[in-house]
């Protein structure tokens, strides 16, 4: 749950900031129900993304020997998530339609991923940092009490709108 809370915060909050950024222009022509539906779509996408990322972290912990990853799942999972999503946010910022696609960065991705994994293992050896991350992740679980119900509700609404 602690790792998942970090994943959700890193995925939901940038999207919500974008939502707030777009809100003034949407208010020119959208009703409250329109804005809610857009919000439900946004949260549903975030929900699916969060599950995919969680699955990736879980798969990583299953593939690697327990003492390498699973025994310190929270701190290593949090670090892996933060670095991975940080890299994706960085990548997203360099993708503009009129600028060349950053193929160089994309081609270096396996190397960057290996670097991230190495960094995770190195940083996890610092007890203070490990403890700090575990504490933060633990506190972030409070967001799940809000985000999970909203996500499930949003997914149901989006499903309902598309099926009926």
């Amino acid at each position: 749950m602690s790792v998942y809370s970090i994943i959700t915060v890193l995925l939901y909050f940038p999207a919500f900031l974008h939502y707030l950024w777009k809100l003034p222009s949407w208010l020119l022509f959208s009703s409250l129900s329109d804005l809610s539906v857009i919000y439900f779509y946004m949260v549903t996408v975030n929900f699916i993304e969060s599950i995919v990322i969680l699955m990736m972290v879980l798969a990583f912990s299953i593939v690697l020997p327990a003492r390498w990853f699973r025994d310190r799942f929270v701190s290593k999972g949090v670090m892996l998530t933060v670095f991975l999503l940080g890299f994706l946010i960085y990548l997203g910022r360099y993708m503009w339609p009129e600028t060349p696609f950053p193929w160089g960065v994309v081609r270096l991705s396996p190397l960057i991923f290996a670097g991230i994994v190495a960094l995770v293992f190195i940083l996890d050896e610092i007890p203070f940092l490990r403890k700090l991350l575990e504490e933060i992740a633990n506190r972030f679980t409070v967001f799940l009490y809000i985000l999970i119900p909203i996500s499930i509700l949003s997914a149901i609404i989006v499903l309902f709108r598309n099926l009926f």
Partner: protein
Amino acid sequence: MRLDRRSFLKLAGATVSAVFLPQLYSASSALQAGSARKNIVILLFDAMSARNLSVYGYPRQTAPNFERFAERSIVYHSHYAGGNYTIPGTSTLLTGTYPWTHRAVNYSGPNFSGKIDNNIFAALGTDYQRYGFGQNVWAHLIIAQFEKYVDTLLSAGSFSEIDFLLNDYFPNDRNFAIRALDDFMFNRENTPASVLFGPLYRALYYRKTAMLGSEGYPREIPQNMNYPLHFRIETLFSGITSTILELPSPAFAYLHFYPPHSPYRSSKRFFGTFVDGWSPPNKPVHRFSDNTPKQKILTHRRTYDEYVATLDWEFGKLMDTLDENGVFDDSYVIITSDHGEMFERGEKAHNTVLLYDPVIHIPLMISVPGQRMRKDVYSNTSAVDLLPTISHIAGKPIPSWSEGKLLPELGGNEDNARSIFAVEAKMNPAFTPLHRSTIAMYKDKYKLIYYTGYEPEDTFELYDLDADIEEMEDLYPQNPEVVKKLKEELLDSLSDADKPYKKNT
């Protein structure tokens, strides 16, 4: 065989009729003669200004095939769009109401809630098989809102080489899928709101575009400006031709082409065609323009003209195929646009608050079934007139909510005393009175432009279009009587339109 006098006269009469009548077959008689319901096909070319078409007197030969089409059509010479970009322009045509009534005035913001039944597809009813195609995603967004009245809604990405739109996967909720996914979470104009899938989506899209060749298009193949759609004009026209040939009867098809909207990507055949040293009359830079340098404007105009010529070439082939298959004998074919494009006064394209003629004077040519001779109509007409006219020729009642009139030669009369309007209000909320907008009113030979909500104060401009078609001389200070009359009418009309929204001020 001997012929008596009576038989000879009968035979002679029949021969004369057979030879000459088709030539004399006028638009109005064709309309009256056609009792069975005919197909109605609207071919709308986005951002096609009448001012850049040779058929409307433009010095560059941009449109020889549209000229051929004009020879068998009713040509409306003073036809105006409801607004200066896709959302208000298309909405005006499809709802038969002005932007201050339908209120689809904001970027990517058509919202017809409460008025969803007031549209051309609903007006025609279920007697017609109704087709909708909006290659411009904003037009698609408008048609999608009327989807319950559209029997076949073609995706915006139909006939495209690359289609990365996501709303196609949400057919039951297309409208919100466009806004929430294509316009927001995966909007390629901004940093993606989706942290994981956003970069992944873009990587796949960019990979696909990198693999797409640009053969035949020196400036790369045409694409939708704001959305991930890339297409070849020949493929687009080929798809549209098949669609028209396969229409059942009676059918109504609204086919909204993206070209010649920017980016202007002419084919190799017309690349550089208009490097001819010609330049239009010099006009002063307007204070509300984006101050684009003159040389850049001229280059944009030239590439636009080349793109129009490319479009015209393909249109010629479409016209020949339709002709060979007898489509013109049993269909009304309507050529028009949603708005124009301007290359003057410091502006390029149509992202502007200005409402000079190049950005709202649009083509309208209607070929009536069996029509062989050209007719010209010079009185002022508006995009709001298409809905009542189409309802009329389809034998349907004219909806009471429509603000248009029957077009001359199709049931209506030339009426220059009427007033028609164009409205620009993209920075104004849809739910409040228009306190920040530009409004143009045409009446007789005059055009009054009203700028409200811009610094330093509300201003007017007046032009006499008979004497000054280029809108060079502002007559506002010189004609107080004309100004008073027109101003009163414009402000009264605006006040009436704003009435339902005054409580939201």
